[in-house]
Structures are given as C-alpha cells and as structure tokens.
C-alpha cells in the first residue's frame, strides 16, 4: 500500500518541482562565474601587477569606453563583414564541390587526391604564402576564410551525399525525376544533417583564423584592435577583445546549432510518423 501511495503522490510532486530553478539551466553558468570570482579575487590581492592581470572592473570600463567611442563596433563590423563574405563564398563553393565529388566519378578521379592533399594544410601555415600572393589587404582575409570554410564544408557535403542510401537514388531514377528535382528534393535534403555540422565547424574555424590573421596583418578588425592595444600596453583592451572574440565564437556556434535543430526537426518528425 505504501508503495502505491508513493507512486500516486509522485506525479503530484512534479509541477511543484518545476517551479524551482532547474539545475540544468544553471549548471553552465557555474564555471564562468567561478572563473570570474577567481579572477576578481586574484586581481584584488594584487599578486600580479595590474598591467598584467587587469581587474574585471577595469576591463568593463575599457569595454564601455570602446563601445561609447564606437571603436569596438567599427572593428567588429569590419571583422564580421569579412567573415560573412568569405564564409558565403567558401561554404557555397565547398557545398557544390563536395556534392560533385560524391556524385561524379570523373571529378573524384581528376581532383580527389589533390583535394585530399590540400585540405591537410593548416590554414595558418598558408598565411605567409598568401601574403605574398594576395598582399595584406581585404583579399587576404577573405581568401583565408574561404580556405578555412571550403574544405570542411566540401568534406561534409561529400560524406553527406555519399551516405545517402543507394535505394533513394534508384527510386529517384525509377520515378524518372528530373535532374533538378533529384538534387533539390533528394540529394540535398538527405545530406543536410552532416552538411550542417560541417558548416558549423567551418564557421567556428573561420572566426578563429580571421582573428589570427588580423593579429598578424591588418589595419582594422577585432584582431588588429587587440594587437595594437598590446603594442600600447593596454591589456584591458586586449582582454575586451578576448572576451568579445570568445562570445562571438560561442554565439555563432549556438546560433547554428539552433538552426540545425529547427531545420532537422521537421524531418525527424516526418521519419517517425
């Protein structure tokens, strides 16, 4: 009887519990807050000179200063513009090339091994050569991002299309689908899940590479703002750059995961019904 009583009261407890703060929501905040607390504590003890370990308040002040003068928005705008342009070119061309690699034996035979070899070269290792070819202007940054995006997206598209069960294509041929319909209704939807993952990884990498190349050679952008601040001994501005870079990278990743879920939800529902 007691057991039945427990079982019966169980569900009644549930609504009450959901009113309390859900630990799953708070858990991700614990480590950043702990880091902030340690930072604040170490800085307040002045174990390191203020110029090396800038206290959180000073960084916040620098952030305010940079946003009020519009400097941060300007650099960030330029960086995000470069990212968008390079990423669109890289992702689109990567997508097309990856699908071609998967579908066409000829493309695979002629370009496959070169593609495999090239994608092994780290983007950052190409910077010195790219500087010689493209100079240090906007072209360099866009080309670097195109390189960082093209290969992961092409690989993801290749894998995604390769993974489509051959029956799907056979059915498509059986129904005499036009080439256009075959692509739009069959190939792309089937490859969308691995493709989105590839694009998300490419986006994250592009952002990292962009900030790195801006540190090295640029006249503007968030990376250059940090490098110039380092040269002027303004570690508070460097820290603002570190945070903004991190938060943007995080937001891009989160945003894309959300998009992935939205796009895939319909399809999963389709499959289960």
């Amino acid at each position, binding site marked *: 009887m007691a057991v039945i009583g427990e079982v019966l009261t169980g569900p009644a407890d549930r609504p009450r519990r959901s009113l309390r703060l859900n630990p799953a929501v708070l858990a991700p905040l614990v480590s950043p807050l702990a880091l902030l607390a340690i930072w604040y504590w170490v800085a307040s003890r002045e174990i390191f*000179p203020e*110029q090396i370990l800038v206290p959180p308040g000073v960084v916040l002040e620098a952030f305010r200063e940079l946003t009020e003068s519009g400097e941060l928005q300007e650099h960030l705008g330029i960086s995000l513009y470069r990212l968008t342009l390079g990423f669109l070119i890289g992702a689109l061309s990567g997508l097309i090339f990856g699908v071609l690699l998967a579908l066409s034996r000829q493309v695979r035979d002629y370009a496959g091994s070169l593609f495999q070899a090239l994608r092994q070269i780290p983007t950052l290792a190409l910077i010195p050569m790219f500087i010689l070819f493209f100079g240090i202007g906007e072209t360099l940054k866009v080309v670097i991002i195109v390189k960082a995006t093209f290969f992961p997206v092409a690989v993801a598209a290749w894998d995604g299309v390769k993974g489509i069960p051959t029956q799907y294509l056979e059915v498509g041929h059986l129904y005499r689908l036009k080439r256009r319909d075959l692509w739009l209704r069959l190939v792309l939807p089937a490859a969308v899940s691995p493709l989105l993952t590839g694009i998300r990884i490419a986006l994250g990498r592009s952002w990292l590479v962009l900030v790195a190349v801006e540190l090295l050679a*640029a006249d503007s952008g968030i990376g250059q703002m940090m490098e*110039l601040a*380092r*040269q002027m*001994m303004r570690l508070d501005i460097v820290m603002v750059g570190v945070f903004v870079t991190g938060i943007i990278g995080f937001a891009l990743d989160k945003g894309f995961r959300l998009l992935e879920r939205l796009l895939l939800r319909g399809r999963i529902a389709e499959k289960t019904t």
Partner: protein
Amino acid sequence: MNFRNRALGRFLSPILALLTSLTAPLAAADEPAKLRIAVVANSTSGTPVFVGPPQRLASDQEFQQALRQRNVELEWVPVSSAAVATLTNEAFTNRRIDFAFYGDLPSVILNASGIKTRLLVPGNLGTNTYLAVPANSGARSLQDLKGKRIALHRGRPWEVSFAKLLEANGLGFNDFRIINLNPQAGAAALASGGVEGFFTLDDAYVLEERGIAKVIWSSHQAPHDWKMRAELWGSEEFINRYPELTQLLATATVRAMHWISRDENRDEYIRLQARFGLPETVIRRDADANQVTWKDYWAPLFTDSLKKHYEQVAAHAHRNKLIRKSVEAAELFASPGFVNRALQELGLEHYWNTAEAWQ
C-alpha cells in the same frame, strides 16, 4: 620522456621566473643576484650581436669584474628587432629585466601604463628614419602617398618621426591607410606591392641597395630632433634600491660610448654593428649624413633639447590616444648625477661639450 620533461620545463620556467621575480623583493638582500639588461640582439652568425653601445659593454672586462666581486651575475636578455618595444615593455612589466637599451615612445607608453622606468644614460643624438616606396613607384613625396597604404609598426619610436613629417605637411594619420606591420613584414609588404609606402629605419637603405625600394624622404633633411632616440632605461625601483650597482652600469655605459665616440674606433664599431645584418656601407652612409661630428653624436648628456624631445613624444602619444594618462617628460629622467659621476670617474668632464648639460 626527456623531451616531455624539457617541454614541461620550457613551459614552467617562465612561470617560475615570474614567481621568483615577484618574491625577490621580499628576500631583502643588499644586492640582487642578477643584473638583467634587455638588448636588441640577433645571433644568426652564431655569437650574439648587440645593437649599439651594449655590444661594447658586453666585452667590458672592468665592468664584469666589478660585478663578479659583488657576486652579481650579468644577464643579457636578447629581444628581437621585430618587436623591441612590446617585448621590452612586457619584460619590464613582469619584472624580468632591470634595464633596457631601447626607444623613446615605448618608454613613454610604459610609464603611462603605470610601470615606472627612468632614463639613466642618454644614448646618441638619435637614429634617422626613412620613408621608402617601391622602386618603380611614381611617388616623389609624402603628398603623393595621400590615401595610400603605408606600413608603420605602431608604438615604435619612429612613429613620432612619422607624425612630425605628417604634421609638417599639414596631414594626419587619417589621410593614409596605416598598416601596422613589424619592419620585416613591412619590407615584405613593400616588395610584394601590399603597401605603397614604408616608414622605417635605415633598413630602408638595404631595400634600396637590393633594388626593391627607393627612399623618398629621410630625417637627414629634417631638424635634428626629428630623429628617434634609443637609450639606457632602468626600473625606478631598481635604481632607487641599488644606486651603487646602477652607478656601475651608468659608468660602464658612458665608458662604452666614449670608446665608440673616438675617431680611431669608428671603423671597428661600424664593423661590429655590421654583423647585425646591415651592410657596413649602409651604416656608414647613415652616419656620414649626420650634421654633427662623430664624437659629439655620442655625447651621453642630459640637455634641454633631450627634455624637449621627450615632451614632444609624450604629447604625440597623448594627442593620438596611444596613452590614456599624460606623462610628464621631466619625471622620466633619472638624476643626471649618475652620468655626471661617471664622467668624473672616467676623467671625461671636459671631453664632450657640457655647456648645455644639466648638472
């Protein structure tokens, strides 16, 4: 395993160095264990070569003997010419060095950030700066470069020289696209057409001799105080705490400058400096163009024009928002007593024209 230990050691040693340097003041010894001096150096030829008077200082047996007697180890901290300003300022900040031979603007930037250093021994009368354009460029003057890309390593001493040139032409930084590149990258950018102009030191002559660039302006044709300065700076804390050791270094530096300033040593000094990478012809060409004699060029004296120079550097840094807090030029100087005593000890009171020098 060895490799891993070494890698670990390499990773940990700077941290340990930082911790020991932070706790060092607590030891309260009468003498520090080490005298650490940052110098612009390279060792491509095997033995390290230093730029300027430290090259002479490094072979000064009298100085090194005096340090040995006091059980103080002399440690040269080499910094690469690609980023002298940043590396030296960072080393002063985390207390890895006590002294440094380096430039004017970075010292002002460091002091504005709250780290106190003092100019102990003034260097020579200044280093010339150059504006170079690609060899096939049609640009003949700064005006022709308006709106174009110019490579300039920001925060380096020659930036002030560049600012003076702009001002004299009624222009500002915003009239150009200033690309922040270190001298090596700047040279590469000029060679590859990435920039239309390159503002730098006498490495511009090297580019010219290789047929890559041509110099369209140099501070030779400008007033004397347009040159950049590099000299001996020390941590204020160290100077106050160890005045005797500081005097030893000041005296040795003045001795080195005296040796260099003698006409019979000029050739050997230039030969030594050529080992740093610049051809002798280039160094000679630069030195010959100076408006003062070789001897007077090397006078280590505190003068009103030195003070005026630092006032201009500090004003430039503040006006262009390189620094937040303004810096008083007068506060940047250590007591001229160190240099004056050095001149006395070496019997050089009347060697240089000290009429304008502070007593």
